[in-house]
């Protein structure tokens, strides 16, 4: 932890006290394993859910956790996300902007690529140009970096790069920490020959199976303790067997059932309340175009029961907002309590009692169908029949955009402004609740341009309160993110996915 704090201390005018405070407040830290002296050497095999031929070694084309973990071992980003999803320095040791959050200067760290070349601004400019290349739509950070004006961006000197935006955005560093924003070598052409600045250099990669990597001895942030890293793909049952049977030392994304039944040979590291499970109501479709009905449904959810049954108790209840514990989450909101009587009167007023509403679900993510079925019972208590219809798991995420007035939704960890950009603006590509309010869009754009963090936070807070009361997201649960490690693995951090210290194998060791 001290290294990050020290780096934060050098960040110049952007305040840091908040970040450190929050990291402590959210209770993120080591998993409570024995604080032994780190040991050198050994091989660590980490197993993730696989994606078969979908798995890629190109760091700019990724969507699976297994890809993200592999790319993280080999490549690095300018900025990463801390445990509270707030940007922390990585290849950029610090940054500053022109006072309007439009022109940004990033100071580069003294890092070297695996081929010995030193990191220079040209690498950064090349990487960003590669990411936003419209000819290759599958480079995932393309839309989030759409406001980057590369023609006006340039190298200031050997260690400083200036990036210019077409519109002010105080969240720009967080965008550089997004998925698929790794820095590659200037002129990088062949993704099959990965050259990055990360703690491991690639030895071999086979889609759907494995990546083998070895320690990079000249890594700028202290070379890894383990000698060899293997990141393997396997489904849930096989991951459980592998880590229990001693064929792997780390298994990602485990189920609550596994956590309950795992034997002595493994330890479960839980990042508390790190993701979100919700029902999403389309605010422009009957019956949810009526705000009373939305509120009634929120009041009908027996959240604790949903958490106990669907998440097997491994999680917290949600408060109809994304991002609890993250930067910008409004902390002064009362928890939503169940109130069947009030819900009933709202539904009676709306004329919905005795009627049938369809909930569209699919076995697309763990717990979706179970949650929908259980919620149908809970809604039934107010005299509304919730009929469960099941769709195709593979296309569910896309189908939900157009099908069903209410459905399931889950989200992994990401900064709150990014979640809003992706899902809650009129033009958002994944606006599952059809929340389209010009005033909300304008308020968000204005907030994002505010350079004072506290003022920005306040404005985001107001927007989020509106969402919680009037929006279509019924966030009922915040599942823990579970990782299983063999007893000899030390130094694994219990932090949300998509943050710097999650799946960070250069800091772990084998006792």
């Amino acid at each position, binding site marked *: 932890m001290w290294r990050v704090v020290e780096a934060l201390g050098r960040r110049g005018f952007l305040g840091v006290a908040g970040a450190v405070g929050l990291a402590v407040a959210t209770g993120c830290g080591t998993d409570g394993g024995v604080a032994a002296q780190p040991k050198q050497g050994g091989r660590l095999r980490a197993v993730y859910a696989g994606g078969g031929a979908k798995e890629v070694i190109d760091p700019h084309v990724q969507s699976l956790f297994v890809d993200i973990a592999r790319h993280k071992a080999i490549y690095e980003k300018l900025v990463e996300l801390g445990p509270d999803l707030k940007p922390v320095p990585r290849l950029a040791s610090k940054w500053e902007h022109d006072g309007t959050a439009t022109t940004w200067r990033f100071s580069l760290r003294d890092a070297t690529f695996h081929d010995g070349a030193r990191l220079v601004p040209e690498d950064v400019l090349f990487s960003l140009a590669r990411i936003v290349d419209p000819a290759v739509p599958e480079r995932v950070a393309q839309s989030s970096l759409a406001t980057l004006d590369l023609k006006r961006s340039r190298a200031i000197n050997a260690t400083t790069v200036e990036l210019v935006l077409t519109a002010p955005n105080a969240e720009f560093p967080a965008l550089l920490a997004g998925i698929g924003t790794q820095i590659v070598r200037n002129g990088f052409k062949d993704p099959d020959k990965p050259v990055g600045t990360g703690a491991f250099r690639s030895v071999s990669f086979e889609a759907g199976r494995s990546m083998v990597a070895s320690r990079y001895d000249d890594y700028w942030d202290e070379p890894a303790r383990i000698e060899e890293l293997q990141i393997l793909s396997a489904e849930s049952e096989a991951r459980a067997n592998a880590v229990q049977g001693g*064929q792997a030392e780390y298994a990602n994304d485990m189920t609550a059932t596994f956590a309950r039944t795992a034997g002595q040979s493994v330890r479960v590291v839980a990042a508390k309340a790190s993701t979100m499970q919700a029902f999403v109501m389309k605010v422009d479709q009957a019956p949810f175009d009526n705000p009373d009905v939305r509120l009634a449904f929120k009041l009908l959810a027996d959240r604790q029961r949903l958490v106990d049954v669907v998440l097997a108790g491994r999680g917290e209840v949600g408060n109809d907002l994304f991002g609890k514990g993250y930067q910008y989450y409004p902390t002064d909101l009362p928890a939503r309590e169940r109130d069947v009587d009030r819900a009933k009167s709202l539904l009676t007023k709306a004329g919905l009692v005795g009627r049938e509403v369809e909930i569209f679900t699919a076995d697309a993510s763990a717990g979706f169908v179970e949650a929908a079925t259980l919620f149908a019972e809970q809604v039934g208590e107010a005299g509304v029949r919730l009929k469960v219809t099941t769709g195709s798991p593979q296309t569910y995420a896309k189908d939900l955009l157009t099908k069903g007035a209410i459905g399931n939704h889950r989200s992994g960890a990401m900064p709150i402004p990014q979640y809003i950009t992706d899902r809650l603006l009129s033009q958002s590509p994944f606006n599952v609740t059809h929340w389209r309010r010009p005033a909300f869009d304008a308020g968000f754009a204005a907030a994002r341009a505010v350079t004072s963090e506290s003022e920005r936070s306040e404005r985001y807070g107001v927007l989020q309160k509106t969402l919680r009361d009037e929006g279509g997201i019924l966030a009922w649960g915040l599942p823990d993110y579970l990782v299983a490690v063999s007893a000899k693995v030390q130094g694994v951090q219990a932090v949300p996915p998509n943050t710097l210290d999650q799946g960070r194998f250069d800091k772990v060791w084998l006792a």
Partner: protein
Amino acid sequence: MRSYAVQRALLAVVQLAVLSVLVFVLTSLLPGDAAELRFTETLTPDQVARLRGELGLDQPAPERFVHWLGNVLRGDLGTSLISGGPVVDIVRNSIGATLVLTVATLAVVVPLAVALGIVMGTRENGRIDRVITSITLALSAIPDFVIAVVLVAIFSLRLGWLPATWVGGNLLASPALLVLPVAVLFGRTVCLLSRQVRAGTINALHAEYVVQARRLGIPRRQLLLRHVLPNAAVPGVQELARTGDTLLGGVLVVEAIFAIPGFATALVDGVETRDITAVQGLTLVLAVAALLINLAADLVCNRLVPRTALLR
């Protein structure tokens, strides 16, 4: 016999053609396509549309099929819609594990099933027959995932004798990886095979020529090996062909539980991601293999008992 082989081969070609059309139509009927499913939650609809254009998915289905067929006839299985690499690579990467598993399983099952079948057949309805029948029937009645989970729980997790999965394992370095999957597949296949051999043996033992041979005083051992076994083997060989087909297609449950990167896994991945070219390529290879195996089985039977040629 030659004309029989030629006719069988021609029939096989027709079967292949029908099969490839069927696979194409069925995969096209699944909701969503490769462009959509590749990055469901990361690409915007505009980007999906562009990707679809790049993959050629905006072309009408018949056109895509003709294009694919043209390539296949030139010996090119095409490019995976998901990985962008040649489909041949997917076949090559997945067939190895399945082949090893198939050969290993057959190497265990065939001798055992034949031996058990003869033992049972020669002791029709005796105590040994009933015991073996009960055991093999029970094995085939228990779903293979149950056997797999139980075996893993006992031999891997509790006793720690055998590896639980192929994850991170290397077959050359640790052949023990084969033991549990082969044990599960054994349980799945031994029953039918040994039952067929048993039935064949019983039939042969009751046949006129064997009764006659017995009367002539031919020693029991010679009688069994020279006269009974070839006839008893006919249903066994055909059952063996079916077993071979099943095993080559990969046994999904076994592959999933032991994380074996085999044919079934590749097929399921292909279907789940709507990688039509990969599914087509894999199915085609599988179909060719199945046709060859069945052809071989028919020819072997024809050789064992030439009269089957007349029945064809």
